[in-house]
């Protein structure tokens, strides 16, 4: 009798997180574990949407799922703060590792959001840094005044600081929204130039990183289901988690390089607006910590500094590690620094 593990995601199987992450992950687990494993996938929200997946893992309706604290803010009060920290996202390797380490080792309150709901966080990847992709010429920071900038709610205050408005459009619909003039620009991972056809509307890319989405859980596992699995399957899963995270980020970075090459060769203007955009962003970031803390208070979180400091310290730690070791052995680094120390 094989152990069946069900995994649900609101994303289709084709996205990098699934095609490079989840699917090869479970293939490897099935191969390495001595006990037989069978995986049942529920893709593209065929069971629940992003918010529902968290509830489904919690209730044990599925064993595992892709979840994002942003969709369950009241259940994940501490973790929802990381969605507010979107501007702190940078190098995807360092960001993903720092976030994963924070949740798994260094921040008991963050882990408690999960354990209180009877689930466990298994790991997270990170999107590559977002650039501002616009459908028309942008030559100075003043050109952005009055524009409609597509991006997650986390970008709304930065858009406001630019004198622009933020508009939330799901990635697959962004190209069309910009083509038809609903939006003028989008805060997007540069990989999306090809994966979501933003290439077709891109005129100017303001290529200054202003953040990256990382506050997700590639896999949230139901505690009861986890405890019911034999040790060899659990071992295989913990062993393969770093590999899955590394593969997803590697693939995104590679796609991003190719996408930027195509964009540049097809005449898209890539600019940093003579440094003014970066300067303005740095100024904006000076007040960001206070804003995040203010939001944390409204979320009812005490002593939020502690969480932010832990995360920021981990980002510095991982930036240093990556500067020293490079990213070729990123999975091994994740294993040594995080997963090998887990008690599961």
């Amino acid at each position: 009798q094989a152990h069946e593990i069900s995994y649900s995601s609101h994303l289709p199987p084709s996205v990098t997180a699934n095609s490079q992450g989840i699917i090869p992950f479970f293939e490897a687990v099935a191969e390495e574990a001595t006990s037989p494993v069978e995986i049942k996938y529920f893709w593209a929200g065929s069971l629940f949407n992003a918010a529902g997946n968290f509830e489904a893992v919690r209730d044990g309706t599925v064993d595992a799922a892709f979840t994002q604290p942003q969709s369950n803010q009241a259940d994940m009060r501490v973790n929802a703060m990381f969605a507010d920290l979107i501007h702190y996202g940078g190098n995807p390797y360092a960001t993903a590792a720092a976030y994963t380490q924070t949740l798994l080792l260094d921040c008991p309150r963050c882990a408690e959001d999960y354990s209180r709901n009877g689930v466990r966080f298994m790991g997270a990847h990170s999107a590559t840094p977002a650039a501002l992709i616009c459908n028309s010429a942008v030559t100075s920071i003043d050109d952005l005044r009055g524009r409609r900038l597509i991006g997650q709610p986390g970008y709304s205050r930065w858009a406001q600081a630019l004198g622009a408005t933020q508009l939330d459009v799901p990635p697959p619909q962004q190209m069309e929204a910009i083509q038809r003039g609903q939006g003028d620009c989008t805060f997007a991972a540069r990989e999306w130039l090809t994966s979501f056809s933003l290439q077709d509307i891109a005129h100017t890319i303001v290529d200054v990183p202003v953040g990256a989405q990382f506050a997700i859980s590639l896999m949230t596992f139901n505690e009861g289901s986890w405890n019911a699995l034999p040790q060899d399957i659990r071992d295989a899963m913990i062993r393969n988690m770093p590999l899955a995270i590394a593969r997803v980020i590697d693939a995104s970075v590679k796609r991003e390089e190719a996408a930027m090459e195509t964009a540049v060769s097809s005449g898209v203007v890539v600019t940093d607006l003579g440094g003014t955009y970066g300067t303005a962003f740095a100024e904006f970031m000076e007040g960001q910590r206070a804003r995040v803390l203010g939001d944390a208070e409204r979320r009812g979180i005490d002593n939020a500094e502690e969480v932010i400091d832990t995360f920021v310290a981990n980002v510095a730690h991982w930036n240093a590690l990556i500067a020293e070791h490079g990213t070729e052995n990123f999975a091994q680094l994740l294993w040594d620094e995080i997963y090998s120390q887990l008690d599961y």
Partner: protein
Amino acid sequence: MLSNFAVGAIGIAVMVGLIGLRFHIGLAMALVATVGITIIAGPRVTYTVLQVVPYEFANSWEFSAVPLFILMGTVAYRSGMTTSLFRAARLWLSWMPGGLAVAANFGCAGFSAAAGSSVVTAVSMGRIAVPEMLRFRYDPALATGVVAAAGTLGVMIPPSIPMILYGYFAEVSVAQLFIAGVLPGLLTAFVYTGVIVVRCWLNPDLAPPVPDDTDRREKWRALGETWPLPLIILVVIGTIYTGFASPTESAAFGAVAAVAIATFQGKMQWAVLRKSLLETIETSAAIFFVVIGAILLTRFMAFSDLPETIAQIVIEYGVDKITLILVTGLIFLVLGCFLDPIGLLLLALPVFLPIYIAADINLIWFGIIFIKYIEIGLITPPIGVNIFALKSILPNVPIQTIFRGVAWFFVAELFVLALLIGFPSISLFLPSLMR
């Protein structure tokens, strides 16, 4: 112990039986789904599904377009805009064999441009056109059949609720889907016209001639009174294509435009507004209950391995694109017999879309073909939602009569389907101009 596949298959059979016994369609689906999920996955899973799924769906931005488009169509109907359209069509087409039926056909096509749903189109035109045809001693099967069949144009001619949902699932542009549906919709209306004219010409008893006693000036005046509906359509389509509004937002604009025009015409009395609102709310609630059932059924299907097993069979046999389209088309036609359109859409797309994407099939083109399957499913027994809807407003016409009436149009649908599959440019020509 039954396999999950068997539970799924038996569930579908039981559901069809319950629907035949006049269970609420939403109830039949929900009941089978609830019991089925409990058998396969246990009561805890069922409880989560019940807690999450209906609320989650009511809470979606895409689905918000549904009541707004219904409101727009209902105001257009209640304030007499659709009646004037049918009247003009009737006056101008009375010379033709089966002229009233042809008028009803084009009346449906015109109404489709206001309504996003086939049921709404069939019900609204059924109220206007069927009594007229029966009054002139048209064959009841023809009179009801044409409205039931042409009512399906509601989902092909934009705006269209299933297209909104398809665009959501397939991640393609709803605006492009909308424009792609125009030619196939008109093509269908013309093929229907051919069917009506030939049948009535061969058998004049089906449609006794209508005395034509109106003069030319009267006819022109009738034509002049048809402007409000095209104007509303212009508002909807215009706000979408200029990027002024998203499809859901354009639905709100369409509703406001309908009210504004009716007010301008002096037809927006308090009673009209009140009835339009109540009718919209009642229809939305009725659709919502069916959607709850369909979504629960979709979750049941996800747990049983029915769709995967079918997809597996398709992957094993379907090699080239046309074979794939034809083989899966056959499955959709069979499923369409039993499922309501939203149910079919929600059930089939998550399973089959990846196959089409893998086969590099143009998803706009396939979207139109899929909408055609939905149209056909709306008029095939045992569960033909359009026929049930029409029946609900015509208590005196036996349901068998309506099914008999749509049989000819079903054949016409297969012909149009073949054209759409054979000539992708029918669907893709207009969207190609948009780029």
